[in-house]
């Protein structure tokens, strides 16, 4: 049982890392590739073929698939706060790659997010131990 617990925790961490980074860089490339304005509905489609936007979309597909896999065993109320650590990396990416300023207020916000993530990821198991249909874990 403790082995099962450790296996699930490691797997959860691994997937959470991929979920977070595919989202952070997906957003970054989308923003980088988007034109100043989308003039027509057709442009919403054609913009998808712009290289940076395409890379952003690809990363968003990775994000969605890994997140779906993660949700197949982990609770939504666990996944949500834990993957919020992405906001911290968005701010850091903004500072490093786009030369955005990180104000004291932003650092405070980043601190709160990290505290929240630590609380949820360190303090609770990723999965609610209630019987689920078809889960067959034999609780």
């Amino acid at each position, binding site marked *: 049982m403790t082995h099962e617990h450790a296996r699930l925790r490691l797997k959860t961490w691994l997937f959470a890392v991929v979920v977070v980074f595919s989202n952070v860089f997906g957003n970054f490339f989308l923003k980088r590739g988007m034109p100043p304005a989308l003039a027509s509905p057709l442009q919403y489609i054609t913009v998808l073929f712009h290289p940076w936007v395409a890379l952003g979309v690809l990363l968003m597909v990775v994000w969605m698939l890994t997140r779906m896999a993660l949700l197949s065993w982990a609770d939504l109320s666990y996944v949500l706060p834990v993957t919020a650590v992405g906001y911290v990396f968005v701010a850091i990416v903004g500072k490093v790659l786009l030369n955005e300023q990180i104000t004291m207020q932003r650092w405070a*916000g980043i601190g709160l997010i990290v505290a929240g993530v630590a609380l949820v990821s360190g303090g609770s198991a990723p999965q609610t131990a209630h019987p689920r249909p078809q889960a067959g874990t034999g609780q």
Partner: protein
Amino acid sequence: MRFLLIGIIVASTTAGEVLQAAGMRRHGEIRDFRPGAIRRAIAVLARNRFVIAAVAAMAVSFFAYLGLLTIADLSFAVPATAVTYVLETVLAKYVLKEHVSWLRWAGASLVICGVALVSL
């Protein structure tokens, strides 16, 4: 315009993610990550009604998000969508019947305050 888009994004994201979580929990834990097994899992999930509805909702959310990015900064767009955390945690408890412990409520509250500080 940007607040209309944010409204659309928040509603469709919340619906999409709760439906996705419901669909994936019904599917059960994915254990096999060999390419063939992943293909089979995707084939099964493509017939899962919750997952289909979730993908539709998230497509709406994605295109509204693209629209928002053209008129707003990333540092506004990303945090403004954090409202979904509140809605989704409440729905996780009452719709998905998850056990949301006080640690998770506290963590989610800290995250929401943090996101607000980062974005304001």
